[in-house]
């Protein structure tokens, strides 16, 4: 669809950026020591730190990605919310306090606290950089993708803009300014998401979500031997048909415009052609939307209820409803989803989204995305378990999250701030279910970009809310990228230059090294963000979780709870966890599909590596520690 730049959105974004830059300049004067730069002097209040945790953690993947996924596949998208939140339990009950006690600036500090081992310093720093980069790329690509539709600027301008602002935030005042940017963003995100949910519930559900919602057409069709030979509408001419494994699509021409229709049966069991949405990409790169140029705005927004059942009766609309009533009605009703099919028509690549009426009970339970029900195999179920495992164990091993434990004064504050974070993030994740379902049935979906579900849902309630939510979406990227750059610059300046290579630096020089590292990492992030333009890189966030869960968490847990853990055991487990997770991902069916090969020929049938790489990393640590018993971690959590 076509997006028009909103001057209010631009104004709000500029206002937010000015606030952020002013804040950074204010804190710059106070950031003179390494402690102030890498850990905000350890003086952040636990409540502020808790919300900053939420601001750091709720990245574009959470806000835009999860809402969009729920809008397209229902409950399966919400499973990400549950998994991401569950991971915080590991952080709170197992990691928070000990990590605060052991470390100084980085996650490597904590791992190496009892050993002073070169191998731990090197492997943990590399792991931090790999995880941070996997996380950075989708954020930067997301920044460009947001700027293009909302501000009317090219992708590279968006990436450059976000990259430059973030470099300024981090290079001026490091963790202090980053903390307050994340605090602001976390607060705004939660408040305005809650407002949006209230508006969704107040609107309720309706068969026609808005007065100008597209009126879908259908016409009777005559079929002989699987081919449509006539339609019950003289205005249309049959010009082509494409049969895929599951569906029959017919190309009709009217007034020189070609559109695609799906062959199906209606509720009276008559054979009909049903209007679908389509994009057609020609060999010369020209793209048509429902047969017309992009500027003609023919690619309308969709998503509506097919049948609403309230108190056992079919109704046209519900009116305002409470949160439980909303979910209950949704479960008993039917919704029209739009499922995608891709095929080649002559020299053109065609993507068709056909109407698929799905019962609410199917939408509200697992199975539409994850193959655990219809058409499932042992491997598809293992894939699902593996993903849920990585989400659960990944959070507490993400370096940019772990460094936030050093910004508070004590272990007690680290614990309290984690509880604030869990409450804020948990509340937000509950909201995602209502936002996603509201978008699914609210006639707001842009089928070309499911990530825009939440901002477009806001737009259906007015331009001001849309502008605010869009500005928050930008802020979401700023907050998370700042945290990632602080983590990566810490790994370079503190773990590698200071600890590993023992480069002699004064406190001021350490700050300078941190700032230069932040600028370098920021520039690399900008370049990668531009290079990866147009690629769906959301899977990289999954990589980050899988690598973090496999490389970092076994090392942290065993260091804390197994006194026979040795430095070589830790280093080996990081290397094995990281390489095995990355190898499985690179040889997985979904990656083979991206390489252009047949996914069935992939040597490893798993897409999510956690179920293999996490136990492998634990096993490596145990075996190597048994074989190298000379330097053990002792008495870390013992009295």
């Amino acid at each position, binding site marked *: 669809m076509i997006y028009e730049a909103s001057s209010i959105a631009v104004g709000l974004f500029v206002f937010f950026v000015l606030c952020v830059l002013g804040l950074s300049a204010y804190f710059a004067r106070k950031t003179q020591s390494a402690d102030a730069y890498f850990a905000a002097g350890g003086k952040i209040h636990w409540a502020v730190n808790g919300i900053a945790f939420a601001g750091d953690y709720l990245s574009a993947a959470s806000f835009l990605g999860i809402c969009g996924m729920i809008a397209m596949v229902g*409950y399966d998208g*919400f*499973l990400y*919310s*549950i998994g991401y*939140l*569950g991971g*915080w*339990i*590991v952080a*709170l*009950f*197992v990691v928070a*306090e*000990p990590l605060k006690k052991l470390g100084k600036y980085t996650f490597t500090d904590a791992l190496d606290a009892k050993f002073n081992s070169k191998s731990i310093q090197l492997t943990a720093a590399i792991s931090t950089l790999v995880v941070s980069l996997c996380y950075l790329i989708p954020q930067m690509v997301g920044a460009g993708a947001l700027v293009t539709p909302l501000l009317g600027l090219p992708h590279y301008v968006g990436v450059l803009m976000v990259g430059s602002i973030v470099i300024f935030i981090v290079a001026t005042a490091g963790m202090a300014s980053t903390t307050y940017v994340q605090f602001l963003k976390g607060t705004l995100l939660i408040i305005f998401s809650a407002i949006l949910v209230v508006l969704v519930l107040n609107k309720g559900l309706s068969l026609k979500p808005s007065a100008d919602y597209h009126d879908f057409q259908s016409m009777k069709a005559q079929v002989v031997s699987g081919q449509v030979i006539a339609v019950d509408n003289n205005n249309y001419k049959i010009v082509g048909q494409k049969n895929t494994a599951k569906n029959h699509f017919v190309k009709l021409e009217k007034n020189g415009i070609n559109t695609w229709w799906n062959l199906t049966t209606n509720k009276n069991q008559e054979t009909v052609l049903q209007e679908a949405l389509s994009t057609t990409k020609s060999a010369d790169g020209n793209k048509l939307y429902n047969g017309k140029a992009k500027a003609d705005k023919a690619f309308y927004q969709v998503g509506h209820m097919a049948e609403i059942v309230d108190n056992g009766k079919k109704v046209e609309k519900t009116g305002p409803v409470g949160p*439980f*009533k909303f*979910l*209950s*009605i949704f*479960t*008993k009703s039917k919704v029209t989803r739009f499922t995608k099919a891709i095929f080649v028509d002559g020299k053109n690549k065609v993507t068709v989204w056909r109407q698929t009426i799905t019962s609410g*009970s*199917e939408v*509200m*339970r*697992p*199975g539409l995305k*994850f193959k*655990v*029900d219809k058409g499932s195999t042992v491997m598809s*179920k293992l894939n*699902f*378990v593996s993903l*849920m*495992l990585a989400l*659960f164990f990944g959070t507490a091993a993400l370096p940019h999250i772990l460094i936030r434990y050093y910004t508070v004064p004590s272990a*007690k504050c680290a*614990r*309290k701030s*984690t*509880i604030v974070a*869990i*409450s804020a993030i*948990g509340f937000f*994740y*509950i909201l995602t*279910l209502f936002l996603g379902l509201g978008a699914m049935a609210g006639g707001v979906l842009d089928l070309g970009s499911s990530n825009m579900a939440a901002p477009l849902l806001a737009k259906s309630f007015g331009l001001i809310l849309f502008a605010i939510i869009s500005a928050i979406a930008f802020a979401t990227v700023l907050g998370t990228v700042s945290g990632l750059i602080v983590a990566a610059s810490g790994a370079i300046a503190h773990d590698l230059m200071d600890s590993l290579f023992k480069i002699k630096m004064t406190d001021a020089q350490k700050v300078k090294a941190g700032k230069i590292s932040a600028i370098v990492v920021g520039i690399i992030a900008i370049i990668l963000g531009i290079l990866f333009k147009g690629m769906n890189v959301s899977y990289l966030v999954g990589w980050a979780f899988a690598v973090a869960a496999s490389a970092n968490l076994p090392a942290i847990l065993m260091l*804390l*709870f197994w006194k026979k853990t040795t430095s070589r055991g830790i280093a080996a487990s990081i290397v094995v966890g990281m390489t095995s997770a990355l190898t499985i991902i690179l040889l997985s069916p979904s990656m083979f599909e991206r390489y252009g090969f047949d996914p069935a020929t992939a040597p490893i049938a798993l897409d999510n590596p956690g179920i293999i790489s996490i136990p492998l990393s634990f096993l490596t640590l145990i075996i190597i520690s048994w074989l190298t018993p000379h330097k053990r971690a002792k*008495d870390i*959590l*013992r*009295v």
Partner: protein
Amino acid sequence: MEKKKNKLDEKAKLGLVLFGIYSLIYATFVIINTLWPKLMGKIIFAGLNLAVIYGFFLIIAAIVMGLIYNQMCLKIEEKK
């Protein structure tokens, strides 16, 4: 003395117990989703199915267990 040294810190022990409880609840959720996905569609209460109730429960349980953990840790810290 040696025996005392080998005892895990009281707060760490408490954290491990609560982590074990939550892990069990989470694992059960994943197992039901994997093996009996249709069971998750069963209406349990107020028109809500098991999937929604269990999902919300996991999120709210994390918050409640966090608060309980904090209270118990505060008591342990006061004792010291």
